[in-house]
């Protein structure tokens, strides 16, 4: 029989129940945190504990390095994950939507983190099978660290300051790594100017992950049209245009790369083909935009003004090629991919922050 450490489980349980009663949780049990645990996390960064990582001025609240560390520990992170958590906060700050109250919105978005570079292997981040699913401590707890901070540092509890109509499952945790090893294309961070030996975290604001089955084809145009059709769905349209991140399974990425398509070739093709006929938009009452909010509505509505391509019968859903990001993730075992429906900058560069471990580890 395995020898387990001897502890007074009643004491541990009492502490965990106390945390739950105080509302310091996403509903699942959280790890108790002591000053000594906190010190282990803070030792792995050169940043001062009081440095602000992200502020929400409308709430007059901020997340500091210290509060990020406390919540990372509560989420079940190992101390060595903390530099990734810090990079995630940098990236979320850079992304811009979070500081402007998007986590309180009825839309119910969640942060989606993408990790690139050697840190993936160092801390055991999953980039392969079940990449959006459970089973990997680093993925599970890094994403959860962000959510617990939203609850505990910013007070964004459901039914209070979090007004999400339905939310989405990623509000527990959402952190994936790119499967760089099984991608023929440059890694996501390299594509955006980082060194291949650097590790980075990219932050997105996501609404949903839409599953794509395409096991039937070896024709790149067919597969790209399947992706484009998923992206253009009218239900995704609240604003005039949208943004998205395609998470290609390695098999699909290989299909494109093998046919000589670069990431930019795929991006261009999807940009051109992710469109709705104006009649399709009219049928769902989204063929114009509001003169006040620029949200889509029917051309029969009192506030309706023409959208910006009113002279065209084919209405693209992506405002620019840059509104589409492409990453490779998952197992190399079937023709499955996903579209991460994002919410936020519809063009421009993605929000990527480097992972910066402490210059001199405390143990050195």
């Amino acid at each position, binding site marked *: 029989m395995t020898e387990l450490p001897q502890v007074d489980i009643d004491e541990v349980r009492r502490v965990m129940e106390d945390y739950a009663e105080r509302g310091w949780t996403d509903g699942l049990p959280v790890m108790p945190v002591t000053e000594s645990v906190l010190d282990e996390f803070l030792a792995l960064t050169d940043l001062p504990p009081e440095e602000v990582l992200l502020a929400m001025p409308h709430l007059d609240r901020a997340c500091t390095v210290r509060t990020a560390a406390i919540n990372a520990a509560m989420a079940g992170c190992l101390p060595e994950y903390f530099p990734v958590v810090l990079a995630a906060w940098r990236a979320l700050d850079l992304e811009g939507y979070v500081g402007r109250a998007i986590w*309180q919105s009825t839309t119910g978005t969640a942060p989606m983190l993408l990790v690139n570079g050697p840190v993936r292997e160092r801390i055991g981040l999953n980039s392969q099978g079940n990449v959006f699913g459970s089973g990997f401590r680093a993925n599970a707890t890094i994403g959860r660290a962000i959510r617990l901070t939203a609850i505990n540092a910013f007070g964004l509890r459901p039914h209070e*300051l979090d007004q999400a109509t339905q939310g989405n499952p990623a509000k527990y945790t959402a952190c994936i790594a790119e499967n760089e090893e099984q991608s023929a294309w440059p890694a996501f961070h390299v594509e955006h100017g980082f060194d291949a030996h650097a590790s980075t975290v990219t932050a997105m604001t996501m609404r949903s992950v839409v599953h794509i089955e395409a096991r039937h084809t070896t024709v790149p145009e067919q597969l790209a049209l399947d992706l484009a059709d998923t992206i253009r769905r009218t239900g995704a349209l609240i604003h005039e245009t949208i943004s998205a991140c395609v998470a290609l399974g390695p098999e699909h990425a290989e299909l494109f790369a093998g046919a000589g398509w670069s990431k930019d070739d795929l991006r261009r093709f999807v940009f051109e083909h992710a469109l709705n006929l104006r009649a399709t938009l009219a049928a769902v009452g989204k063929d114009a935009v509001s003169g006040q909010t620029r949200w889509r509505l029917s051309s029969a509505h*009192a506030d309706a003004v023409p959208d910006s391509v009113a002279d065209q019968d084919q209405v693209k859903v992506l405002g620019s090629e840059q509104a589409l990001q492409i990453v490779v993730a998952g197992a190399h075992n079937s023709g499955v991919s996903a579209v991460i429906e994002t919410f936020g900058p519809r063009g421009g560069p993605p929000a990527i922050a480097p992972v910066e471990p402490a210059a001199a580890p405390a143990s050195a």
Partner: protein
Amino acid sequence: MLERAGVPAVSICTDAFVVSARAMAGVYGMPDFEFVTIPHPIASLDPGAIDANVRRAIPDVVRILTGTP
């Protein structure tokens, strides 16, 4: 914010947002801040229904602005 600057103000929200509105008022140190509430939803109403909601809300708006009990 306007009230702090000395400008009488009244906030109107639909009944679906009362809990969040109270929570925000608490964040701003005004837990007893009074809201005018109107029925949810708004976004899908036609102009006639919006008008009707406004007419029903006006007495409360006037009452809060003028401070009459």
